């Protein structure tokens, strides 16, 4: 989201507690509660999907049935009852919209409250937006501009109809259906998400972005995003989400697959502030996401940049598989956990091609009673001679009731590669705080300044539009943690 001053002020006006906490009263069309083969068929039918996709979903569903909820992360939560969730819910007033004028005015009001008036988008410096509202894409702007370049940016449900060969070729190629429990679930019941295709030699002229919002009680979000960058292309994609206040935990199990060909570059940025639950950990979103990038081509590059401040539980490892020789994978992350949040996040860099390079910079901030774990894996396979990895993971602890944990795995199978890993744990020193206080900054300002300084290396990787919002977000999410 491009955050103008006006937007930020508008957002500030809303109450002190979770700023985006409210519900839209739109009648939603729901599938019956629970999950079974019929629900999968229902979803596929609703979207009028071709048979091959239904078969694919059913295969995933059957695979999911054989799998068990994984328990290895350092997070604690009650077992999810999948029969108690709505897997499909769409607003009745349905889209086939070409222009913003056709968007439901109720919806427009919703987005205004969120502080991102759609109308504003048109005036802003070229950010195309694909709005996702409770499992169905509502509006896509700037499509014409992109179409001129041959760039496809549309909801995945549309891509299935209009570009079936592309979808068929790549979906599940980075994250196979049986990869993990939540990926299998997503493959069976995903309802929508973005599809991006950048043709050879094209540099996408604008940042692409999308919103998510979980609204319906008990509905999970199962977004599926697929981004394909052909030879010599470039795209920067921003993902930012907000969610309303809810009492029940809501599951978010998205899957993001990125494919980069020779010399292509994909930059994927996320600012995530899902409802984190109240001070005691009640409510809040479960964010169990599988994200992976395939650096297929030579000298391809995939960068993941994320600022995670929300969710009750975050469980995600955006990863890169570096197949092409000289390909590059990057992971920059700031993960904030406050009050009773729990985060077990990190990345995997799998080096397969020669002379591949990966950089991991992870900054974890824990406050309140939160637990923040960095889990990373760097694997240098035998074929990956001459490869390099540098990992820096730092943890900042605010207060003495939280925890910060680091669990890195380094597996190296070739002598000519070099892996370097550094991790530090610290707190905001009294000296630093006092120095800032003596210069007239109050405790909140001082903390925000020092914490942002701690995260600087990551923040500077974010597209400018996100960087400002991200900094504010970090400050807001740490409110009340110091002093």
């Amino acid at each position, binding site marked *: 989201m491009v955050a103008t001053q006006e937007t930020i002020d508008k957002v500030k006006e809303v109450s002190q507690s979770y700023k985006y906490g409210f519900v839209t009263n739109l009648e939603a069309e729901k599938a019956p509660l629970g999950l079974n083969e019929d629900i999968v068929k229902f979803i596929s039918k609703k979207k009028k999907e071709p048979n091959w996709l239904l078969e694919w979903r059913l295969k995933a569903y059957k695979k999911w049935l054989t799998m068990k909820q994984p328990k290895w992360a350092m997070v604690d939560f009650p077992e999810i009852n999948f029969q108690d969730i709505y897997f499909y819910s769409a607003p009745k007033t349905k889209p086939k919209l070409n222009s913003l004028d056709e968007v439901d005015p109720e919806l427009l009001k919703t987005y205004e409250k969120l502080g991102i008036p759609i109308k504003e988008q048109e005036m802003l410096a070229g950010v195309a937006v694909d709005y996702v509202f409770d499992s169905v894409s509502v509006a896509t702007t700037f499509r014409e501009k992109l179409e001129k370049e041959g760039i496809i940016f549309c909801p995945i449900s549309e891509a299935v109809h209009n570009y079936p060969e592309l979808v068929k070729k790549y979906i599940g190629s980075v994250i196979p259906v049986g990869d993990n429990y939540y990926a299998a679930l997503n493959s069976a019941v995903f309802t929508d998400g973005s599809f991006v295709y950048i043709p050879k030699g094209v540099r996408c002229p604008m940042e692409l972005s999308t919103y998510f919002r979980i609204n319906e009680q008990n509905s999970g979000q199962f977004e599926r995003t697929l981004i394909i960058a052909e030879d010599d292309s470039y795209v920067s994609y921003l993902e930012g989400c907000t969610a309303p206040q809810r009492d029940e935990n809501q599951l978010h199990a998205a899957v993001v697959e990125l494919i980069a060909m020779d010399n292509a570059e994909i930059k994927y940025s996320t600012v995530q502030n899902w409802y984190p639950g109240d001070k005691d950990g009640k409510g809040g979103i479960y964010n169990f996401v599988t994200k992976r990038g395939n650096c297929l081509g030579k000298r391809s590059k995939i960068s993941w940049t994320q600022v995670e401040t929300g969710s009750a539980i975050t469980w995600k490892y955006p990863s890169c598989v570096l197949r092409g020789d000289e390909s590059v994978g990057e992971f920059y992350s700031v993960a904030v956990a406050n009050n009773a949040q729990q985060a077990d996040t990190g990345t995997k860099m799998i080096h397969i091609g020669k002379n591949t390079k990966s950089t991991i910079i992870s900054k974890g901030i824990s406050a309140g009673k939160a637990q923040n774990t960095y889990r990373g894996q760097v694997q240098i396979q035998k074929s990956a001679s001459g490869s390099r990895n540098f990992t820096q993971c730092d943890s900042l602890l605010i207060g003495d009731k939280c925890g910060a944990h680091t669990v890195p795995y380094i597996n190296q199978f070739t002598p000519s590669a070099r892996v370097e890993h550094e991790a530090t744990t610290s707190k905001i*020193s*009294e*000296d*630093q705080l*006092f*120095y*800032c*206080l*003596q*210069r*007239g*900054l*109050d*405790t909140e*300002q*001082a903390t925000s*300044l*020092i914490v*942002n*300084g*701690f*995260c*600087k*290396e990551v923040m500077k990787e974010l597209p400018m539009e996100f960087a400002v919002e991200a900094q504010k977000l970090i400050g807001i999410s740490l409110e009340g943690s110091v002093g």
Partner: protein
Amino acid sequence: MSLLEIKNTHLKLDNKEILKGVSLSVNKGEVHAIMGPNGSGKSTLSYMLAGREGYELETGEILLEGNPLNEMSADERARSGLFLAFQYPVELPGVGGMSFLREAVNSRRKFLGEEEFDHLGFVKEARKEASKMFVKDEMLKRAVNVGFSGGEKKRFEILQMAMLKPKVSILDETDSGLDVDALKIVSEGVNAQRNKENAIVVITHYQRLLDYIVPDFVHILSDGAIIKSGGPELALEVEKNGYAGLINAA
């Protein structure tokens, strides 16, 4: 009414009494020097005045322009116009010098009801003051104090003083670790700020700094109390006879 009034202050650290009844009156336009051997309580006095946690008064009062500082937090005191130039300025990794300065200056301005600087306006102002202190643009882009030499750190402290325009500045051993050139620059920076409305308290245990920042009054602090006060010639006496002589005589 004096600008800064320290009345019979007692302070304990780890159950040991460090300040044993320190009193001092500093009026507008004055420069006071506090000298004393190691362990006399000089740094404790400066932390106490600045309001550092853990350095609360047992008994006594401190007033800035008649307002009691005892109840104010460190940042409130700073915004009210109290400045402490640290002996060992701490590093703030990732916190850019320019943004740090702007936040501090704007906090003070907001408190005073003055208009806050916007980004560009501030940069102009900062560069102006920085050049006087021989602080290059490049240094302002770096993180606060990270990798700064001793001299660079002290110059940056005095630059902050110049930009915040405090009522009372306390310079805690500003001369420690400085070579002659750095000392000159820092002293010139301090002297340039002396005026009829503010006051400066220079804490040092070497007389040398006082050749450059000439004080109006000199006080000797020993074992938590001021044992002798006088004019600038008292500093020369210390130089000649050492502290021991004065302490024994007191």
